């Protein structure tokens, strides 16, 4: 197995490292720890966090890429060392894990849980005659001898998934309760009573309840997805459920990396403008007003058009389609960052303007501390909460923006799985009769769940960090 690290993979890992580093830093500083404790105490926050965790886990699994080794080939000279050959296809751990979903490709559209194709075909029957009918699917419901048993089969499979999900949930719950009981030296039943009545300090009941819903849904969907296409198949017969899951990574990458790539510029310029004032302030203000004056969509469109021209003329620089799509995704994050850093920059400038008059900053300056030492030691740590809030608040907007941009064809690469691409390719099918609705429904459903969880979480984070900013947008 040969690991492949794409550009966005590397940045996601970097982001992960920063997040862990920040968590360690925050744990040692009370002014950062206290708001997070408030977030953890909020029921809405915990529920949203559990949902987000599921999304993030799938996204992370989909971020570890590798190429499978090809079967060793016999060479002419025995004993000679053969360099291992690797398949050209770049896979992720998620691809490998969900290979039953990925590999079972039908011919074209089929409805959710269908056993037959959505369009008629000429079928040669056993006696040699040809009729036009809906053929059986190659994979969906193949195990059924008689498609009429489908209802019971679905019911049975779902029940099995439900039981499995509940068992896993029970084990996790037991583990949580047991460790709580251990730490506080209480009996298991006492802890159970507390959680059930929601008298615990952290809202464990909400968290475990959400976990139960997510696990049951996941296990039921998983059990059914092995037998059916639970969300149907698209035009080329790919499983829509798989596509929707794959799109999670794209959404998460756009939502997080965009903010990550714009952070250094926004933070540095923002606090410098506020701290130094004078001509530095003028230049930086000019810079962001100019960038802001260009309509965001047009700037993105212009940049993506230019990227397309560049890629068309330098096609040989990209080893594979995946790499090319990945670079386009990164570029999209960059350009989205360019259009969205100005808001944060302005906020930070305002905050730095206030902070520079603070006593401790004045004292530092009077004692001869250098400008950049003051910026790094006194200003930066005190604006971190604004950065934090912006990062969380921007996330959902960016996920939604991806869908719109892909619709205008200036979003991610058309070969990349994303909710925007799913909607874009499915929207014309609404004109068909009967309607092909499942691609759209799946994309909207997955996007809605993620964005709703992110919005709820963002509200909690904002309220916890800065009650004054409540309702800032």
């Amino acid at each position: 197995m040969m690991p492949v690290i794409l550009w966005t993979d590397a940045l996601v890992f970097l982001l992960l490292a920063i997040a862990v580093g920040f968590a360690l830093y925050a744990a040692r500083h009370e002014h950062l720890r206290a708001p997070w404790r408030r977030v953890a105490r909020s029921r809405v926050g915990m529920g949203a966090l559990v949902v987000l965790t599921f999304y993030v886990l799938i996204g992370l699994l989909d971020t570890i890429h590798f190429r499978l080794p090809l079967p060793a080939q016999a060479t002419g000279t025995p004993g000679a060392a053969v360099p291992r050959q690797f398949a050209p296809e770049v896979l992720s751990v998620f691809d490998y894990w969900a290979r039953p979903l990925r590999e079972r490709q039908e011919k074209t559209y089929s409805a959710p849980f269908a056993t037959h194709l959505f369009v008629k075909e000429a079928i040669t029957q056993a006696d040699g005659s040809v009729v036009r009918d809906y053929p059986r699917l190659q994979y969906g419901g193949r195990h059924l001898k008689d498609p009429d048993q489908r209802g019971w089969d679905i019911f049975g499979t779902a029940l099995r998934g439900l039981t499995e999900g509940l068992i896993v949930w029970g084990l996790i719950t037991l583990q949580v309760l047991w460790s709580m009981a251990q730490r506080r030296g209480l009996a298991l039943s006492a802890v159970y009573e507390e959680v059930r009545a929601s008298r615990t300090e952290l809202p464990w009941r909400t968290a475990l309840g959400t976990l139960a819903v997510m696990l049951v849904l996941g296990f039921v969907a998983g059990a059914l997805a092995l037998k059916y296409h639970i969300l149907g198949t698209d035009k080329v017969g790919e499983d829509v459920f798989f596509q929707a899951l794959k799109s999670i990574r794209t959404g998460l990458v756009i939502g997080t990396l965009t903010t990550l790539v714009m952070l250094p510029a926004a933070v540095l310029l923002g606090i410098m403008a506020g701290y130094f004032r004078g001509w530095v302030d003028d230049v930086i203000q000019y810079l962001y007003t100019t960038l802001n004056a260009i309509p965001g969509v047009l700037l993105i469109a212009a940049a993506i058009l230019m990227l397309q021209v560049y890629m068309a003329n330098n096609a040989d620089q990209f080893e594979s389609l995946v790499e090319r799509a990945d670079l386009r995704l990164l570029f999209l994050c960059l350009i989205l960052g360019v259009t969205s850093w100005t808001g944060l920059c302005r906020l930070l400038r305002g905050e730095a303007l206030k902070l520079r008059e603070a006593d401790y900053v004045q004292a530092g300056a009077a004692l001869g501390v250098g400008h950049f030492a003051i910026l790094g030691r006194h200003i930066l740590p005190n604006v971190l909460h604004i950065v934090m809030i912006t990062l969380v608040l921007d996330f959902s907007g960016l996920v939604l923006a991806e869908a719109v941009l892909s619709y205008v064809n200036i979003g991610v690469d058309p070969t990349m799985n994303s909710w925007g691409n799913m909607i874009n390719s499915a929207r014309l099918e609404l004109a068909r009769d009967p309607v092909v609705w499942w691609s759209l429904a799946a994309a909207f459903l997955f996007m809605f769940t993620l964005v709703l969880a992110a919005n709820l979480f963002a509200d909690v984070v904002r309220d916890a960090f800065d009650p004054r900013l409540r309702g800032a947008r």
Partner: protein
Amino acid sequence: MSAYILRRLLYAVPILIGVNLLTFVLFFVLNSPDEMARMQLGEKRVTAAAISSWKQERGYDKPLLYNAAAQGLAKVTDTIFFQRSVKLFAFDFGSSDDGRDIGYDISQRMWPSLAIAVPVLLVGLAFNISLALFIVFFRATYLDLGAVVLLVAMMSISGLFYIIGGQFLLSKVFHLVPISGYDTGVEAWKFLILPVIVGAIGGIGSGVRWYRTLFLEEVSKDYVRTARAKGLSERRVLFRHVLGNAMIPILTGVVVVLPLLFMGSLITESFFGIPGLGSYTIDAISNQDFAIVRAMVFLGAVLYILGLLLTDISYTLVDPRVRLQ
């Protein structure tokens, strides 16, 4: 006041120059006109003659910044930068890459854009403000809580969903209005209903939430308590005192977007087939017509700056405490 406006207009000049330079760099320096021609004419098998004639037709065969071959002033004016970028300052947009007059197109397509954007703004404003007042009237009850949850959910739904859902429900299932298209004159109304409804509904989530926080902020102020202590009814307090004072942020928030209404909405217009500036831009993007994109970038920047200026002026008009200098 007029001195202030004049100074602000002068401030706008360097910003517009910056925008112009940026687009110039993006469109002509990072990618040479040769590459654009190759992209437009098909990628691989293009003869050099075809490229140079494509460039000549559109005036892209001139030097970028300085024309050494020309005489006198033409050394500067007979260049791509002057012909294509500097002329934008006089709102001379030139012709698009397929030979149409951009200025004429913009003046024609402006009206359908406005026909959508203005009703969406007005309907949305009226609806959102009344709904927000209603929610604030019932603040700190379960109705308030439920409404907020609903608003967050509505905010989390993609705008594309509202459009596709609206088209599907009203046009395909109930056959109430045409799915898309546009007509001139009064007949246009039936094509406008659906986009306006969809646009208004799509804005409810974030709009009502924003107004709700505005009103809640006002409600907790001292003058409201005084008004209540005087014995005014809650309804009178809300409509006369709270709404009146909250009008300042509402008004300035509206004024800043007013000029940008001209640009139209990219997504709505292209979904509903409305020949406004939004779909003009989208078509230009998908046809890779750089001249139009450049013109729209400049127009957008001008309108944005105009919006900022109008906001500042409107502050002085509605709030006597603000003095411009």
